[in-house]
């Protein structure tokens, strides 16, 4: 086991990893940008290193700085959290060549699954259904039109290197297709410096259901159940729950099998997530594999009792998993609300500022993962996520009631947050009846305007 780990991240996930290491008796080194230098969670790390100015490119994405910090603080491993460098294969490669363990899959796996059209090829080779569309990147508009006509409108144009909704466009006819291609290409070039695109059928009324994978370096690959992440806004998840309230036990089993097949095909190690779209008829399609810890990992922890961050660390250190698939139990229902510092009255623009009052809810079945506190100044440079409120109860009904109560008890003053939106979702009949898909939130917000 490692004795000292560097955490190449910030905010709630940095604190999450610090806590896990503390429980395992592992020392932590927290890196931080100048914008985070007064963040309270830094004092819970054993050591801390300033790695650059506020912009991410010069700090949390600054590979030489982070590697250098790892070398001067003499750590054995780096936990990348999620976002930032967590899926950067070149970063993992540099770690590997510097004899620092990257806590995640190998750089080869990161590279393979990081390219969406390659990942799609892996799926097809392993009989995992994919969304009908181009088998490789599109070279010109004629090809796009011909594919669109073959698979039928509406179609979705995506960046090969994409993520977070960037470089993504829907087209309903030839005219909008031409426009969408141009827009997506420009966005992809800007965001990823890779303008290659692919095209696929746009699945309407779909749920987003993902399967958590955990695999050690000794050939054991397990799934830890699924998460339903259909409630999104601008391709960003707002509320996740497990188990998915909208799929049959049979479909659930098929998703698990498909996810395990994908993970085995690429000799996956560490924690990863296979994402699927599920349409109204219960047909499912592979979207992508996230080769890292997910923001919403706590709901899986709640129902399985397994600490995913600790398992990531154990696996990276070479330890075998201590249990097999049959030992993994799923108890009850867990739901997470991602609370963002955003202004719901202003197009959900990030609303950084100073938290003047902060009181978190508590009690049985309530977990809060948050680095915020009274007096905390939310820097304007990063993601606006300030808290994850997670509940775990025996039934979905109890979990929803618990979450509503916890949101009522939560006091966050001085900034605007998505709490009112979460409360609205939790009271909506479609949510209560588990009758929703990935367009539900935006439809709800659109109707109000």
């Amino acid at each position, binding site marked *: 086991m490692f004795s000292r780990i560097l955490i190449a991240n910030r905010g709630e996930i940095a604190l999450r990893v610090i806590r896990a290491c503390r429980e395992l008796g592992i020392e932590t080194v927290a890196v931080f940008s100048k914008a985070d230098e007064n963040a309270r969670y830094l004092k819970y790390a054993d050591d801390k290193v*300033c790695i650059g100015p*506020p912009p991410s490119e010069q700090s949390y994405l600054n590979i030489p*700085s982070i590697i*250098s910090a790892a*070398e001067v*603080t003499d750590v054995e491993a780096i936990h990348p959290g999620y976002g930032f460098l967590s899926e950067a294969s070149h970063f993992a490669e540099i770690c590997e060549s510097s004899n620092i363990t990257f806590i995640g899959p190998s750089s080869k796996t990161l590279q393979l699954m990081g390219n969406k059209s390659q990942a799609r090829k892996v799926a097809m080779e392993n009989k995992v259904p994919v969304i009908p569309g181009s088998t490789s990147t599109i070279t010109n508009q004629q090809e796009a039109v011909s594919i669109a006509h073959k698979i039928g409108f509406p179609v979705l144009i995506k960046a090969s290197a994409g993520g977070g909704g960037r470089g993504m466009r829907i087209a309903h006819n030839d005219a909008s297709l031409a426009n969408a291609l141009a827009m997506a290409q420009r966005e992809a070039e800007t965001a990823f410096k890779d303008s290659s695109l692919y095209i696929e059928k746009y699945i309407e009324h779909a749920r987003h259901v993902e399967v958590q994978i955990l695999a050690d370096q000794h050939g054991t690959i397990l799934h830890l159940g699924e998460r339903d992440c259909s409630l999104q806004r601008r391709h960003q998840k707002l509320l996740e729950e497990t188990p998915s309230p909208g799929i049959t036990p049979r479909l659930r089993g098929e998703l698990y099998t498909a996810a395990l097949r994908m993970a085995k095909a690429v000799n996956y190690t560490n924690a990863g997530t296979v994402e699927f779209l599920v349409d109204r008829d219960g047909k499912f399609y592979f979207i992508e594999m996230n080769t890292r810890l997910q923001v919403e990992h706590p709901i899986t922890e709640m129902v399985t009792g397994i600490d995913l961050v600790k398992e990531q660390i154990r696996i990276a250190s070479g330890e075998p998993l201590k249990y097999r698939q049959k030992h993994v139990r799923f108890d009850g229902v867990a739901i997470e609300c991602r609370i963002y510092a955003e202004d719901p009255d202003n197009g959900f623009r990030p609303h950084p500022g*100073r938290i003047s009052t902060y009181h978190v809810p508590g009690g049985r079945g309530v977990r809060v993962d948050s680095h915020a506190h009274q007096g905390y100044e939310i820097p304007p440079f990063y993601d606006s996520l300030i808290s994850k409120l997670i509940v775990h109860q025996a039934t979905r009904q109890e979990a929803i009631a618990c979450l509503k109560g916890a949101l009522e008890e939560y006091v966050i003053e001085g900034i605007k947050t998505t709490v009112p939106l979460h409360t609205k979702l939790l009271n909506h009949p479609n949510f209560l009846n588990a009758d929703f898909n990935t367009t539900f939130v935006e439809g709800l917000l659109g109707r109000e305007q």
Partner: protein
Amino acid sequence: MRLERISDLSKRAYRSMDTMNKIKELISLMNTNDLAEIEVQEDTFRIKVRRSNGVQPSVLPSHQLPGAMEEGQRLLPRKDNFLEIASPMVGTFYKAPTPGAEPFVGVGDMVDPETVVCVIEAMKIINEIKAELSGKVVEVLVEDGKAVEYGQPLFRVFPLSPEQTAQAQQR
């Protein structure tokens, strides 16, 4: 910010105002200057105005954005009239090009913007660090071979104009 005294007001003009106007003026000053309290006493005339905001600052920490270093701006603000040369990167600080060699600079040495003051090893690469200012080194703040983080002060320098520095270097 907290003003203890009102120095800007011309005393004559102040005296000529009637009491209520004085108070209004004081309050306006408090509002624009974010004051908690004003007390004025002149001969037999005294005014004291205090704001009601009773929140203790100790309860509400960290009310300011951390002062971000702008890109390229590595010179930390003056402290006791000195400037500091800050580390532009994370790495290991070496005062000399090779172990045992003469240090790049020592206390009393004159530096100009192009003077190499140390090297910082990061990812097996030796980076030469230039002073980027002119003056006289008064303190070396980091020990040879120690780790430094981004923005960490490395040298304290008494600032001199380029001309003064050049003169002193020639001496």
